[in-house]
């Protein structure tokens, strides 16, 4: 009896000691398919790291951004790992809000990360966030409608070709719009598309001295082309369409072309949800022959806030979630098509992935065609393809987005929208001390 009591006591003590030793890390993330999948596969991580427990906080993108910004700015210490994008990383790293990722392990193979993505997540050559999945933007088009229009989509189309194809494909009587583009106001909505588009028109947000450039002809050409194209060939109420709205339209066969995130390819080609799954072709984002294409670069990435008390455990998790082994784990459980795209060169060299994802090559080419450190035709003082990596951009980008959305809706003219955008940008940059 005594022996039994002693054994039980020892067992309880060791359990308690283990529980006390086990560290719990809190991960803030968004509700994207790849992130949700990761949550279901964490048994693999906890099996390899029995002393680390994972707690998940999933939030809507804008709420997540607000929450993690509040937490990191006040050093609230609520999160040990945060899901953030290429916009936040350079700004936060410069503020010393993020820990450098220097303990990812010997077999992590940091050089395998696609250079354009790694460049967007590094400051002075140091990686501050590990990419979980990366994306660019490209043209998704209906091969059947293109054929019916008597045209062939080149791999690298021009904006003039897009206009010509849209004009021919539009058949409003049958509910087909030649082209669907983002119109919903927001720095991450219509301004992501329009900023990337403006790069291919030779426009830029600011000159080398941070002077706003909306009064220049390049911006006028961009916005006028966009508004004219959408008025002639876009869906009704386009000024309130974002990614999800256009995705729904395309999947229902109501768009001839859609220029948006490469990650959409896996949705539109999925026969379970898309009525046009077998009819979709892909091409690079359009250009105007100026040397820059209208595609962006984004990576949802895992970063560790400087305020965490559990940096080592957090880094172990980040390493696991963004490793080659994780890609293989997803492939073995759910197939290669479901592996998070756009982060590692090795994935695109894998023949099995190429077979499972017909859009793989075009995705990689699109990512490689974007250069966040030299995003525009003329020189600029900022980093970022579809955004300007300064703290003021979230507010300013959304204000300008509202003006451009109003121009698309016909509430203001293109000239007025640009004039007001110039005024708003000048006021913001003066207030921020960038210009006098």
């Amino acid at each position, binding site marked *: 009896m005594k022996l039994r009591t002693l054994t039980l006591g020892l067992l309880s003590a060791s359990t308690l000691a283990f529980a006390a030793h086990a560290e719990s890390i*809190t991960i*803030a993330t*968004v*509700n*994207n*398919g790849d992130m*949700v999948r990761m*949550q*279901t596969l964490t048994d693999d991580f906890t099996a390899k790291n029995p002393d680390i427990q994972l*707690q*998940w*906080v*999933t*939030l*809507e*993108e804008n*709420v997540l951004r*607000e*929450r993690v910004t*509040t937490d990191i700015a*006040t*050093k*609230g*210490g*609520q*999160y040990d790992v945060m899901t953030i994008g290429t916009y936040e990383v350079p700004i936060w790293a410069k503020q010393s809000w993020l820990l450098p990722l220097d303990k990812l392990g010997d077999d992590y193979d940091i050089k395998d990360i696609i250079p354009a993505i790694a460049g967007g997540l590094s400051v002075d050559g140091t990686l501050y966030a590990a990419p979980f999945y990366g994306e660019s933007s490209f043209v998704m088009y209906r091969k059947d409608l293109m054929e019916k229009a008597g045209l062939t989509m080149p791999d690298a189309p021009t904006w003039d070709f897009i206009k010509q194809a849209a004009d021919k494909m539009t058949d409003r009587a049958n509910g087909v719009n030649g082209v669907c583009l983002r119109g919903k106001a927001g720095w*991450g909505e219509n301004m992501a598309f329009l900023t990337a588009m403006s790069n291919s028109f030779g426009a830029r947000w600011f000159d080398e001295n941070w002077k706003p450039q909306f009064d220049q002809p390049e911006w006028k050409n961009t916005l006028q082309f966009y508004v004219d194209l959408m008025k002639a060939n876009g869906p009704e109420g386009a000024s309130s369409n974002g*990614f*999800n709205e256009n*995705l*729904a339209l395309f*999947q*229902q066969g109501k768009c001839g072309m859609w220029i948006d*995130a490469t*990650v*959409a390819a896996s*949705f539109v080609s999925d026969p*379970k*949800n898309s009525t046009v799954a077998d009819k979709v072709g892909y091409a690079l984002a359009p250009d105007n022959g100026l040397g820059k294409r209208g595609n962006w670069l984004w990576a949802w990435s895992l970063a560790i806030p400087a305020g965490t008390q559990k940096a080592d455990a957090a880094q172990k998790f980040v390493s696991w979630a963004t490793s080659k082994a994780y890609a293989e784990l997803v492939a073995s459980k759910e197939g290669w098509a479901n592996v998070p795209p756009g982060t590692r060169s090795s994935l695109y060299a894998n023949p099995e992935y190429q077979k499972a994802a017909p859009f793989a090559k075009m995705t990689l080419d699109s990512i490689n065609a974007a250069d966040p450190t030299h995003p525009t035709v003329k020189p600029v003082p900022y980093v970022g393809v579809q955004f300007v990596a300064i703290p003021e951009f979230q507010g300013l980008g959304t204000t300008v987005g509202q003006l451009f959305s109003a121009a698309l809706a016909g509430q203001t003219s293109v000239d007025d929208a640009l004039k007001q955008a110039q005024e708003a940008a000048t006021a913001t940059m003066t207030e921020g001390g960038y210009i006098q």
Partner: protein
Amino acid sequence: MARAVSTQHKTIATAAAWIVALLIFFPILYTIITSFKSEQEAIQGFNLFPSGTTESYTAVEAQSGYFKFFLNSVFLSVGSTILALLVAIPAAWSMAFSPGKWTKDILMWMLSTKMMPAVAVLFPIYLIFRDTGLLDSRIGLMIMLMLINLPIVVWMLYTYFREIPGEILEAARMDGASLWNEIVYVLTPMAVPGIASTMLLNIILAWNEAFWTIRLTTTEAAPLTAFISSFSSPQGLFWAKLSAASTLAIAPILIMGWFSQKQLVRGLTFGAVK
């Protein structure tokens, strides 16, 4: 003299009431309908007849445990309501039965705090919570919910207490009732319906509060509002799953509201008819 109401008028009024009620309830009804659709059906435009699939509910339950969020919602809404009543009953009592020179102004000032946008005090509150270790704690959030609903609770109780004739209290005093007896045997029985309806309404308000409950919690104290929020997605199809999550989140409070609708209506129409 009672006004004669013709049958025709009655029918029109009833029909109008039904139409208005249906209009108000329709978004909730459509959410419930959408929760029984597949994602594909959900995006295909307006359709009142779902295929009846429960795949969204299965997905929602698999993705995040509903029960923990539900328990937090119950704890926070009931707890904050009890706390609010403990503070508000004495306050409303004194304002109704022995009003001072500033009573009206205090009442207005209390209400005016509801006019400020919550986001204006996000940072100060966040810092206070951080420094007192209340971030992601149920107790901290319970106090927060109590504070934001307190003005409404005080106002509702005050309005209800004012309906109780002061003469009854005087009569009780004349008969020799002590303050304690006056409160327990005279006032409380008369005030119970008012307190009950205030409590119900406050539980609903606390249950639905989505600004602070999302911003001051992470994992431990997160209630159903955080649960719903986790199903919205910037990239991908989520309408059916979001509807299923919303239906699960509102179901308990909807059922409670259904059973207590008499008290609720009474609470909302205090003093409307003298």
